[in-house]
């Protein structure tokens, strides 16, 4: 197991190098001059050339890349062209918000999606099955920004407990404060603010998980050993939860992992609708301003998180299904 993890970590290195080259090239080869956008409409040619020299954009591309990569290895993400702030500060400030939203959304999706899938599978062919799957279909078809605005205008406007926008407090940090200092206010603020954005993402993800749970479970339920378990006279819920569900979980874990990763970049729209100060918004703004260091540093950090989550998912297979061995 340990050697497997080490090997996987080693494999991440060339992957990240590849991503860094790709991001760098995409950013530098796409049209749009950061210096012109920075200097605004009154810039003279002299000012443009001067600033290009200051930022090193007049150097050959490979030279710029190696300088950036060298600094990255030392933990120096560079400085934002537009804002003059270290990129690491901007990126790390937003990672908690992004991870928290991703985690809570996935949690909502799992808590709602798996039971719904099981319910539909057990009631297969009945009206309940159809209702559940139609609900899932609606969930997966609703664009999250539309659902978000709907939640805001139909629910948050009438419920004082639910704020319209922004992030206050914290869920993880708040939980820690609650357990150590018996103060629930930070957690409460965190929960109030995260419910709607997490729901708007979680519902469409829930739908995917519910459909997958249903089909995966149905496949398992058709196996001989399930029939044997029933024949042994085991209670129905024991058969479903202990014998069938555990085996049906593997593909579900895979999809949860992928969804979690997609959340990192894909929550941009939701982050905008709810004014959630996450990584996606930072990167999108940086793209429109051609703030190269932020785009490069931000995307690379996302890649690191994504590959790490993937690794965790692969490791978790063994916990669910002990027959899986890593070597």
């Amino acid at each position: 197991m340990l050697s497997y993890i080490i090997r996987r970590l080693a494999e991440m290195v060339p992957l990240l190098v590849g991503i860094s080259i790709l991001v760098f090239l995409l950013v530098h080869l796409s049209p749009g001059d950061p210096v012109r956008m920075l200097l605004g409409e009154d810039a003279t040619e002299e000012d443009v050339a001067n600033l290009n020299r200051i930022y090193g954009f007049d150097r050959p591309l490979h030279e710029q890349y190696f300088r950036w990569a060298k600094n990255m290895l030392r933990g120096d993400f560079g400085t934002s062209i537009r804002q003059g702030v270290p990129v690491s500060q901007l990126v790390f400030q937003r990672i908690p918000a992004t991870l928290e939203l991703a985690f809570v959304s996935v949690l909502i999706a799992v808590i709602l999606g798996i039971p719904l899938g099981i319910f539909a599978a057990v009631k297969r062919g009945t009206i309940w099955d159809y209702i559940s799957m139609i609900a899932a279909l609606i969930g997966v078809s609703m664009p999250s920004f539309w659902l978000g605005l709907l939640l805001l205008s139909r629910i948050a406007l009438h419920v004082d407990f639910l704020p319209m926008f922004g992030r206050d407090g914290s869920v993880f940090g708040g939980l820690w404060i609650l357990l150590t200092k018996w103060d629930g206010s930070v957690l409460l603020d965190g929960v109030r603010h995260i419910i709607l954005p997490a729901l708007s993402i979680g519902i469409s993800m829930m739908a995917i998980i519910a459909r997958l749970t249903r089909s995966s479970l149905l496949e398992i339920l058709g196996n001989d050993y399930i029939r044997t378990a029933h024949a042994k006279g085991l209670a129905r819920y024991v058969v479903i939860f202990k014998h069938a569900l555990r085996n049906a979980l593997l593909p579900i874990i895979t999809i949860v992992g992928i969804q979690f990763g997609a959340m990192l970049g894909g929550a941009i729209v939701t982050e905008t609708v709810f004014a959630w100060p996450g990584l996606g918004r930072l990167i999108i703004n940086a793209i429109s301003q051609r703030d190269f260091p932020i785009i490069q540093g931000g995307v690379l950090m996302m890649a690191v998180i994504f590959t790490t989550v993937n690794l965790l998912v692969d490791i978790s297979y063994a916990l669910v299904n002990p027959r899986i061995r890593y070597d």
Partner: protein
Amino acid sequence: MQKRKLKRKFMFVLLVLVLVISVSGLAAADNDTLIIGSGAEAIGLDPRLETDVPSFERINVIMEPLVKFDVDMNLMPLLASDWEFSDNSLTLTFHLQKGVTWHDGTPFTAHDVKYTYEWVLNPDNGASNRGLYQDISEIEVVNDHEVKFHLAKPYSFLLNNIARMPITPKHDGDRSDFRQNPIGTGPYKLVSWTRDDRMILEANENYWGSKPIIPNLIFRTIPEDATRLLALEAGEIDIYQGGVVPQELPRLEQDSRFVVQRAAGTGYNYLGFNTRVGALGDVLVRQAVSHLINREGIVTRVLNGIGTPGIGPIPTGLPWFNPNVPHYEYSVEKAKELLAEAGYPDGGFKLRLYTNENPTRMRIAEILQHEAQQVGITVEVIIEEWGAYLTRIQETDDYDIFILGWSGQLDPDRAMIRQFHTDGSNNYTGYSNERLDYLLDYGRTVPPDSQESLDIYNEAQEIVVRDVPYGFINFSEEVGIHHPYIKNWSVHPYSAAAWQDAHRMVKDK
């Protein structure tokens, strides 16, 4: 087993209790805190480096320029109590307010003024707006409260540019994190700033002018227009200017729970014609296309009534605005006649129309495409990402028509010389007219409040409108919205100055 279950139940009940107790602590912001919504985050807070409106919205409550624009676009004293031009227009003398201190207690003097402008004028510092001040040749400190700007050549509208540059402190302006955590002379002091989330400010108790009435000021960044409006409706923010959802305006104006304020803005949208190549090189063709712009229809249908039909390059609120220029009313017949006169009786040519991913501009492009079809012109609409689009317009002439807008056109010089002078820094269309060049050069040397100045720019507008380097689509309009319990605030035509008088505002909930 049983015991563990009990313990868990107990923990759960406790958790719920703690949560419920903390709910009672929730309260909306009181009269001591003004919460302003904003559509975008500030890039930074150093007036020497920023170019965007959201940055200046915030900078203008922390720092102050020598002079400012009031809501009627008149220049008013701020850090300068008085000023005068010398007879040859080559020296501008400012008498500074006395008793002004920086937020850290250091007195404000003429040396701060000299420091700020010299910093901006030094090319090594990369100041974004250096071009606005490059006619200043020397800044002379007469004494702590008097400073002279010596000009290389007369520039009558320099004051308007000076109104855009808040003064920064000499003793603190080179601090490495000044841009994130500045001090100023303004009515509010920065307390903390979390990007993309909120900026918290508190009243400057030692403010030299009228003392701030509301002790705390918070800017909240809410990028989505619909969410920002909902946040206002829910009472989570008190006020904002800009980006009010147009479709909602009729409802909001009827609703007594809100106050909507509107004012003519300082910008406009236009079609830029590439006058160097193809059919558009012919002024008759450009006039024909201008007749195809259904300005009334665009304002009512696309802009939902926000704005007014475009006429010329100078905003309607400025004294130089000339309403008596030729108007290109929407008329397919007129367009056909002009095209026939130009030798294209059945159209029969193709134009590439570029725009960025702005929904309003994309709709305008589609409308024009449809109108052009009626006279036999094929318009191909090409939509590009903003950065790429701007590069195309600014650095190539590989297009026929583009849609862009100008904002912050505070005087006729700024509204015309860069865009239409043969050597103008933003003359993207390649337009050139000798008489116009002369007028625009001469206009900068004439006192702005003189009849001569009005005459010069009247003629200049006539030339531009007749030659049609731009097809003017619409003038902008500023819209602000707030709850009725907010008083002493007026929407500002120049949105960067929207909150400069926040210290006079009252919140009486």
